């Protein structure tokens, strides 16, 4: 079985919700739509207070190349154009849409009676550019958590061309099972989406990378591929190791190629897309449905009803938590995403956004940091780093503000996977310092580049 070559750790999997089906959450009557749901420039608001919007209409227009459209998740009236506190407590630009009874009924009817807007022949007739335009209009972003606009990855810079699409179905984060559930329930949609991505990228080969702990998904997808006769697509079983879902690690695992330092992953000829993104592409092309909902795993060791919920984007996080039985009394931390890379939130009333793959409620006993001990130079962090960096050194340099040395030690290559902090026997806050260093050095590099221009 293949995996990536440098570093990596084996956190306890804790996939509590692995066998639970996707539960459709009732369409909310009021949503808060955030304009900065993706990496890159925030979308600009094109509606004003009092406007009536239809479900799926664009409310935020993408600004610039690396940006994505934002759509109305429900029909209704724009009641507020305001700043609302996001999950991290910082105010962000939003609109609030509230639906009347008629709007609500219409939406429910439209969802019940959703029909393909393109026949299979029409889909076959679409050119690569057509598909990319549909993806662009539908505001699809990477649903693995990084929310990088999908169309940007499909348009490689001049001089570079893709030869394979790698589908990221690794889901290496502990606890999260949203991709797993989607693969079990919608394999045909995913495979159709993969085929569309292959055509958009102009390649005839796609590899779906799945970790061995999702055996039923692997066999199901393999079976459907042979039944549907999709010769270009193959499923690759990968060894269970964190952070295999990282773009560079996945390319290493699947293709055996290393992305050079500072280069784009496309330089290896691979375009990596998440499996949920492929499904969103299928829905956008076939049903004309923009990205207005996603599967979210709500989980935790003491959560009453953990599960995979298909949630409308824009509904409050607290509502999803309520569906799962509320916040357990022993909760120490609520994390958006998985326990390794997820961000702790301070505001549970914040709206869900496209990048929310999971809501994890960890008990205090598991979430509290251990007391920091001195570094014993065991170099476990060096062995664990999947990017071949020296985390102890980066953390120390960052702590003493040695930004130039930090840049020389390639801090910008860090993928912030957290393997170093996870493995440190002295529980040193390595990633905290490295992240600080990375943001400082990144800002300095950007300032230097803009000065050159």
């Amino acid at each position, binding site marked *: 079985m293949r995996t990536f070559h440098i570093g990596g750790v084996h956190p306890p999997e804790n996939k509590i919700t692995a066998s639970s089906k996707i539960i459709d959450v009732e369409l909310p009557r009021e949503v808060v739509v955030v304009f900065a749901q993706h990496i890159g420039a925030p979308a600009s608001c094109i509606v004003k207070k009092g406007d009536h919007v239809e479900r799926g209409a664009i409310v935020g227009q993408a600004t610039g190349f690396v940006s994505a459209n934002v759509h109305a998740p429900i029909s209704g009236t724009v009641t507020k154009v305001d700043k609302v506190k*996001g999950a*991290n*407590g*910082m105010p962000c630009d939003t609109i609030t849409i509230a639906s009347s009874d008629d709007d609500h009924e219409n939406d429910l009817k439209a969802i019940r009676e959703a029909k393909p807007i393109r026949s299979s022949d029409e889909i076959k007739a679409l050119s690569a550019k057509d598909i990319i335009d549909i993806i662009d209009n539908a505001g699809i972003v990477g649903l693995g958590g990084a929310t990088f606009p999908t169309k940007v990855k499909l348009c490689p810079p001049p001089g570079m061309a893709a030869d394979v699409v790698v589908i990221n179905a690794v889901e290496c984060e502990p606890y999260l099972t949203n991709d797993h559930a989607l693969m079990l329930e919608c394999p045909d949609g995913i495979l159709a989406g993969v085929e569309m991505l292959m055509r958009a990228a102009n390649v005839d080969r796609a590899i779906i990378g799945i970790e061995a702990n999702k055996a039923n998904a692997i066999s199901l997808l393999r079976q459907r591929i042979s039944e549907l006769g999709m010769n270009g697509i193959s499923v690759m079983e990968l060894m269970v190791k964190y952070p295999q879902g990282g773009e560079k690690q996945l390319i290493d695992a699947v293709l055996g190629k290393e992305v050079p330092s500072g280069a784009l992953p496309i330089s290896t000829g691979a375009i990596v897309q998440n499996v949920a993104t492929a499904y969103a592409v299928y829905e956008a092309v076939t049903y004309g449905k923009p990205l207005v909902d996603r599967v979210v795993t709500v989980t935790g060791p003491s959560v009453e009803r953990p599960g995979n919920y298909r949630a409308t984007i824009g509904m409050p996080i607290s509502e999803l938590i309520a569906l799962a039985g509320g916040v357990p009394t022993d909760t120490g931390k609520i994390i958006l995403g998985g326990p390794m890379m997820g961000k702790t939130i*301070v*505001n549970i009333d914040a709206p869900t956004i496209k990048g929310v793959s999971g809501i994890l409620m960890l008990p205090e006993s598991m979430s509290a*940091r251990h007391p920091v001990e001195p570094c014993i130079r065991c170099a476990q962090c060096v062995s664990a780093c999947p990017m071949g960096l020296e985390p102890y050194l980066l953390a120390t340099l960052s702590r003493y503000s040695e930004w130039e040395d930090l840049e020389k030690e390639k801090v910008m290559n860090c993928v912030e996977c957290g393997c170093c902090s996870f493995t440190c026997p002295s529980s040193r806050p390595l990633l*905290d310092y490295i992240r*600080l260093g990375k943001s400082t050095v990144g800002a300095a590099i950007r300032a230097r580049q803009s000065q050159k221009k």
Partner: protein
Amino acid sequence: MSIISAIIVLGGIGLLSAAILYVVSKRFFVKEDSRIALVEELLPGANCGSCGRSGCHDFACACATADSLDNLVCPGAGEEAMKKIADIVGLAPTASKPKVAVLHCYGTCANRPVMAEYDGPSSCAMLQTMGAGTTACPFGCLGCGDCVKACRFGAMHMDPVTGLPSIDPDKCTGCGACAKTCPRHIIELRDKGPRGMRVWVACSNKEKGAVAMKECSVACIGCGKCVKACPHEAVTVTDNLAYIDPAKCKLCRKCVLVCPKGAIHDSGFPMSAADMAALAERKRKEAEEKKASQSDSQPKD
């Protein structure tokens, strides 16, 4: 016998080295402006960089070679020292107003609700990258003391009661190291003011009034009462936050009295604003009474 040879050899090496050092020091002697050393003595030697030079020595060199001292001011040395430096280099001193750091936040532990706990490394910069911090206010002080660590003059310390940095105006030189370090940009260098009297808005919250009130009990709500009260048009409200222009402020402190949230602070005044107002009121009444009694005593024609 061996000891004598050792003395001869080592002594010889010593003499030879001394000769080489002597020749080199004469041959490569660099004549340095003697004023540089004199100027450097007057500088604080903290190498804080607030003058825009790479350190105190560099600043001294620049002073010695400059044509005018217009752009050469060491805030750390103070006005007296700058006058002496001007004498040494034979140039006219630049008149500069002394500055002092003020904190645009008074979200003490009692004033701001705590929303989260943070058990990571104590650093404001790190906390800032994570979002709003531990309190409800996403604009105010983060309380990890990055500014205190940045201060080279020992003018700041974290007040354990308020959880905010406290600035000693006597020690603060106005070098601005703290203002540059603060990731929330809530420290401003303001004119020290006559006899240290100054007025400022101790808040950075840009939320609308209702939200700001929830976030902090002493937050500026942008009501604009201070703007109306100010007779000198020194106060402006932008993004629901008041700002007092130190250039226009005449230190009357009418704004301090009208602020419903107590967000406008003053310092260096011999009397509090309320006492001052009471005194003015009393004097006004006395004057009125006097006037009235005078007009009563005057015979009516």
